[in-house]
């Protein structure tokens, strides 16, 4: 019998994850700019015009109606705040903030309310809210709409942060985030949305546990740690290294807060070398955190210093030529590994 093969795109997998949770739990709602698009103008044939800028929420308004799928004005601080309040009062909102660089217009709700309310109310209030934000550049969105920035969210206690790397993890983490009783921020790289993964995604509801990384390729010579898009870059670099006779192990981080220290450190203790690949700005980043963690907790096991391969400490260029060079490439990662191995 043929093994079932049900390939979904990254976006379709997220859409299925959201739909699964909305069917399972009537308290789940979705809010954001153009999550439907032209809601309220059904007569004119405009309903679900967008289904989200990246079509992640397409079709939800037909199935669940306007009371559970809420098109909002361009008012991030308003609707993220409404999401926080709704979560405190018993709903399970999924709030789409579109580009992560919009954090500046809703930071107070996320950093001061969402991250702190459970603590400030002495544990009496839970906030089962999920934020999804789109990261990275995928074709000329320039400096303000191409950032990654998960590092600044991971800085705050009280926020769980996850970064799927393919359709399978995208669906599993979306469901886990929306089931979690704490605030979870899901970072969806726009650079994964056009990729043909040809990956089987089960139709059933399944969760990937928040706080767990996974090994997507085994090897003994060096550990590569990828996050979202860069996991794919790491896998491709590992293939290139294999041709040169080196076996790289690839850790797909998936959860940036909390970190799966055990998986990271046990891989490093085996390979004794680590290259961390991150498309966020480098300073005070997840890459820094991982390099620090590796140095502190695996110092005696390392044969070479931990190495970070990241975007440069500069704004993201609009020029497509420069944009390509901004993000860590397979060649950069491969070369970094060779440097560490030799």
């Amino acid at each position, binding site marked *: 019998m043929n093994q079932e093969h049900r390939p979904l795109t990254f976006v379709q997998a997220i859409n299925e994850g959201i739909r699964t949770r909305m069917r399972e739990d009537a308290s789940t709602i979705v809010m954001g700019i153009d999550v439907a698009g032209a809601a309220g103008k059904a007569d004119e044939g405009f309903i679900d015009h967008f289904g989200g800028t990246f079509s992640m929420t397409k079709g939800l308004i037909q199935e669940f109606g306007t009371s559970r799928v809420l098109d909002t004005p361009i008012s991030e601080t308003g609707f993220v705040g409404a999401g926080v309040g709704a979560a405190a009062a018993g709903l399970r909102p999924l709030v789409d903030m579109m580009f992560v660089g919009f954090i500046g217009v809703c930071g107070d709700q996320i950093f001061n309310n969402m991250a702190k309310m459970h603590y400030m109310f002495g544990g009496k209030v839970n906030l089962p809210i999920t934020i999804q934000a789109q990261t990275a550049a995928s074709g000329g969105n320039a400096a303000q709409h191409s950032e990654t920035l998960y590092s600044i969210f*991971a800085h705050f206690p009280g926020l769980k942060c996850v970064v799927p790397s393919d359709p399978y993890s995208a669906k599993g983490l979306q469901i886990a985030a929306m089931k979690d009783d704490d605030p979870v921020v899901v970072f969806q790289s726009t650079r994964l949305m056009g990729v043909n993964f040809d990956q089987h995604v089960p139709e059933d509801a399944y969760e990937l546990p928040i706080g767990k990384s996974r090994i997507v390729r085994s090897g003994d010579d060096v550990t590569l740690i990828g996050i979202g898009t860069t996991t794919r870059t790491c896998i491709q670099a590992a293939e290139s290294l294999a041709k040169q006779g080196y076996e790289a192990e690839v850790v797909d981080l998936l959860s940036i807060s909390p970190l799966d220290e055990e998986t990271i450190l046990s891989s490093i203790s085996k390979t004794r070398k680590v290259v961390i690949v991150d498309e966020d700005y480098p300073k005070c980043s997840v890459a820094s955190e991982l390099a620090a963690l590796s140095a502190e907790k695996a110092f005696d096991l390392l044969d070479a210093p931990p190495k970070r391969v990241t975007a440069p400490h500069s704004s993201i260029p609009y020029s497509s030529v420069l944009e390509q060079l901004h993000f860590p490439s397979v060649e950069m990662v491969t070369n970094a590994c060779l440097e560490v191995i030799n």
Partner: protein
Amino acid sequence: MVSTPVRALTYAQAVNESFHQEFERDPSVILMGEDVAGGAGRDEFEDAWGGVFKLTGGLIAKYGPDRVRDTPISENGFMGAAVGAAATGLRPIADLMFVGFVGVCGDQIFNNMSKMHYMFGGKVNLPLTVITSTGAGVGSAAQHSETLYSIFVHFPGLKCVAPSNPYNAKGLHTAAIRDNDPVIVFNNKLLMGGARGPGTGAGIHVPEDSYEFPIGKADRPREGTDVTLIGISYTTLQCLKAAEILEQKGFSAEVIDLLSLSPLDEDAILSSVKKTRNVVIVDEDYPMCSMASELSALIAEQAFDFLDSPPIRLCAPHASVPYSPVLEAEYIPSPEKIAQSALSILE
């Protein structure tokens, strides 16, 4: 020989003196923020505040409301106005009272201030200074006690400095105001003191003449050979106290006062660590993706073969700042904990 005259100022007085001197020197310097004067437009109340931490007192009386602008509680508005004013030729200082208010003006700071020079192809300079208060220890609870410089440092296009005493506070504010790029100055509440007193570390000599402390340079307030303690702002004082404890135990600690968080003075950090071969990084900010992480990563990458022991980070816990004074006192890394961390690698 004549001994050096001591002209003792508090941290707030030193910053205030920098502002007065820069206002006098350059008429394009202006100041905006909530209660930077207090009661502006009402003669009987004018300068009632002079800033919540008294950094800006006396400026309105001397330079008037055109240059010292009390704003409404509207961070996004006045921070944006400051960015625009800087782009069009003024040299504004904007006061973001508590750093935790970044959430209500993040767009102006992260998307405009940090990126405009780049996005306009270098044709626009933003000679803008943001001052903001940081730190726990005064019972201001979770939303008004954060440190958060780490998230500003994350962004390219922002220079970030954190003074640790009245002398470098004056010099760094002057340097920040004169800089042609956006600079954020993080002023720790315990160092500023205010209503509670003159502030920790007050009373050192501060020259009356105007001077700059260079952005991008760390300081080394104590030399030693056994371990490097890296402090940032208030934790530098904690490191100096820890160094005394260590001395009593027979160990010689070198203290690096980071001062400039972005750009980093890699030379000063690495040369100290290469000498002592051991390092403890002390940071009051949340630990994840922090300055401490950055320093630990930098040292691991660039000085790996020199280290006798793993770099150690001593930070606040990954938890919100407690309101309870008992818990709050435990929150900030103490000299005892710093000494203990150092001893754990030295003994």
